[in-house]
């Protein structure tokens, strides 16, 4: 279930969203981005990892023209972003952003109304909007709370409504800023399952996180951010070989890699065993090993 190889990968057609040498400085003089370049492949799962203040949120705000770079360009499907009204409208239709704090995103009185805000802005008719709202709420498991006032929801529920509000616009690229922050373990699992379904349906996903273990478990590619620039883009499958790049960004190798190396060193797992993506994946593999060869396997 958690093994990356088990997930169906839709066909890729090259980069869908590209950030090319972006520079941005905030009004108070703080450097937001400093020559940041990053490419997101169509249909792929991407994790953006970096310390606080490394520029992850600033980069997201550039993706659909909420911020305009001082230098460099953003390209969607090979075309530079058009910052005129029609161009921004198109960009925000195709690229959806879920903000870190749902309190900053939800402004309507009740759940259903808030989710309808985006699709209504697309100029869709009421029946289509209603259908999209129902589908988006069902996708995040909030259909039973559709008529509830937003302020009576828990943080996790608000987060789900925020995601539904973006899903209802049916974007091709979904950007999530720290989606796991503030969620309990069960909600994190639910969100992970939702992300898998979206990926299965062909959506391109880029999420910002601090959690290297989660990124290793879920993503196809990991982009490292530090001091306003993307310092490396690593294929998750080969992450174990890039401990130096991770260390340079102040990150460690995922725990599961260390555990698997220890198990190989102790002869419990063969060196040729495929890399596990998370500890539960590794445990399941060990269980299978024990049941297949109970007399020889030592777990």
């Amino acid at each position, binding site marked *: 279930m958690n093994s990356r190889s088990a997930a169906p990968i839709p066909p890729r057609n090259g980069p869908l969203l590209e950030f090319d040498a972006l520079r941005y400085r905030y009004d108070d003089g703080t450097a937001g981005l400093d020559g940041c370049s990053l490419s997101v492949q169509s249909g792929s799962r991407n994790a953006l990892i970096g310390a606080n203040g490394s520029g992850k949120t600033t980069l997201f705000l550039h993706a659909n023209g909420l911020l305009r770079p001082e230098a460099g360009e953003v390209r969607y499907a090979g075309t530079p972003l058009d910052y005129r009204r029609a161009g921004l409208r198109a960009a925000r239709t195709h690229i959806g952003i879920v903000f870190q704090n749902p309190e900053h995103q939800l402004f309507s*009185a009740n759940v259903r109304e808030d989710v309808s805000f985006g699709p209504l802005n697309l100029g869709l008719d009421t029946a289509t909007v209603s259908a999209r709202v129902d589908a988006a709420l069902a996708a995040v498991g909030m259909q039973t709370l559709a008529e509830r006032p937003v302020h009576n929801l828990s943080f996790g529920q608000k987060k789900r409504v925020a995601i539904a509000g973006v899903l209802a616009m049916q974007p091709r690229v979904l950007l999530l800023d720290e989606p796991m922050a503030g969620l309990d373990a069960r909600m994190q699992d639910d969100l992970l399952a939702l992300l898998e379904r979206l990926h299965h349906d062909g959506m391109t996903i880029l999420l910002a996180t601090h959690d290297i273990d989660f990124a290793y478990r879920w993503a196809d590619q990991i982009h490292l951010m530090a001091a306003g620039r993307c310092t490396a883009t690593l294929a998750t499958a080969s992450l174990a070989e890039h401990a130096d790049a991770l260390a340079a960004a102040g990150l460690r190798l995922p725990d599961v890699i260390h555990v698997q190396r220890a198990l190989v060193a102790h002869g419990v797992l063969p060196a040729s065993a495929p890399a596990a993506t998370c500890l539960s994946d590794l445990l399941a593999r060990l269980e299978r090993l024990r049941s297949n060869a109970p007399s020889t396997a030592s777990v």
Partner: protein
Amino acid sequence: MLIEQAAYANRWRTVTPGAKALFAGCGLVAAFLAAATPWQAAAVTTCLALVTLVGAGIAPRLYLRVAAPALGFLAIGCLSLTYSLNFDSDSGGLSLAASASGRTQALETGARALTALAALLFLVLSTPLSDLIALLRRLQMPEILLDIMVLCYRTLFVFSAALRDIHTAQAARLGYAAPRLALRSSALLLAGLVGQIWQRAHALHLAAEARNGDGPLRFLAPPFRHARRDTTIAALAGLALIALAASARIAARWHPA
């Protein structure tokens, strides 16, 4: 919060807000018609309160708690209309006097305000504000006013949560342990909230833009079944209220003293 709690949990939550607003509107008309005849006013007020308590199923205790501040203001207003403070130039003392005209004025004003209060309580305790905003949208109220209502309503809860959080954090570090500290903490809380208001307003603006918001805040209006039936019943009930309020005037016209 009490109003919110009742509005979302009452028996008539799914009744179309148009019907409830129509009935409340009739209640307001009845309040003006019945003001001069206290018994009629009392009867209309009782009807409105009973409809709210029995029909919509609002708990009497909650009803009284919501009405209490308004009733308090009303009582003070009526007392000040009834009694006047006079300065006696001979004795040089102050005296409290009640005039007949003041009593009549207080009775009329009190009766009208009480009935109008019962009508408005019926509406707000049985209808969530989001439904009322949707109704006003259908009635072609200017977009800008609706947007302000939506944002004020939402931010009311966001800031009450922020206020509670900051206050708790201050109290946990002895911020309110002494009057002087409490004054200082209150000032810091206020200053902190101003900053938060600015940040959150900017964040909400960004979030609206990210979802293609270009000015007016558009939302899906909730569907209501049996809207026509509910509106007809509300209109008939409202007319009955108006008839009850006007009955004294009609009787006086037909049987002059």
